[in-house]
């Protein structure tokens, strides 16, 4: 695939967002990364509302749970109920490892749930593992002409 993967990071912690971005670049992933810092912005971006009208939808979303304005679970619920957005894979990236949060994420149709490591090296490694599977092994909807147009 020659076009870069478009990745949306929904993360209010700037340091974590920067780490994800650095880890993806370090993994030599050809990707276009967009970061938004709250759930409302994420939905505006995905729906191409207001200032995002000319943007492309992402191929994959990395979603924190604890976000200002609209939390990650609500973003997920709205995405997976929207025919235009439901096929975009959403990977929850959260510091919560509570079983109830993990289960709720999957019940709302998160595609996967990854725990954020507090240790920077572990955090970096976890983004590399995520990248190897999702951008290397799995086939994403964007890897179709129809999916690229729809998503």
């Amino acid at each position, binding site marked *: 695939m020659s076009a870069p993967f478009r990745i949306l990071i929904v993360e209010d912690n700037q340091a974590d967002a920067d780490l994800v971005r650095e880890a993806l670049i370090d993994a030599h992933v050809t990707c276009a990364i967009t970061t938004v810092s709250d759930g409302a912005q994420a939905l505006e971006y995905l729906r191409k509302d207001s200032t995002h009208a000319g943007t492309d939808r992402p191929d994959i979303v990395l979603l924190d749970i604890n976000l200002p304005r609209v939390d990650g679970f609500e973003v997920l619920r709205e995405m997976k109920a929207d025919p235009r957005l439901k096929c975009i894979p959403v990977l929850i990236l959260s510091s919560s490892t509570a*079983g109830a949060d993990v289960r709720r994420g999957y019940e709302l149709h998160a595609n996967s749930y990854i725990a954020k490591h507090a240790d920077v090296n572990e955090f970096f490694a*976890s983004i590399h593992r995520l990248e*190897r*599977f999702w951008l290397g092994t*799995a086939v994403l909807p964007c890897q179709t002409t129809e*999916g690229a147009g729809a998503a």
Partner: protein
Amino acid sequence: MSEGAKPETIILLVEDNAGDVDLVLEAVEHFETPHKLHIASDGSQALEYLAACLDGEKDRLPDLVLLDLNVPKTDGREVLAAIKNDDRMKHVPVIVLTSSAAERELLQVYRLHANCFITKPTDIDTFFAMFQSLERFWLRFARLPPPCGGHAHHAEHRPPRPGVGQRDIEGGIQV
């Protein structure tokens, strides 16, 4: 779930092709994660197995489902929809494995809330590498929903030997 008490991972493989079942059995032999593999050789057997889990007649629900789309009796898409439309088991991650990535099929399964889609490589080495990648991500890295649903019968299970999973052939496939 504490790390020390982590139970074996229960995987349901829904696959009718005996050759592919053999390959999966060989691939999961190399898994480092303790696991128990159930095999259903058609979609109806898979749904019967899941219903029995929910009724407490079998193990707890599987932690992960590996689903071939083109299986007899009940199609893989129907199995996927049945899992993802049932509040009691919609949380169970379903990985769709199929031999062809037809565009419409790929979009359809993501819209049905498959957790991910993987094409089966025809080359054996690549097939094993794909399963290694799958294990590294889904069994050793990603958080899976905590076990629940149905009744756990761990005490009745033989503990797996280190690095070796248990096999439970649900269908008529002889291995």
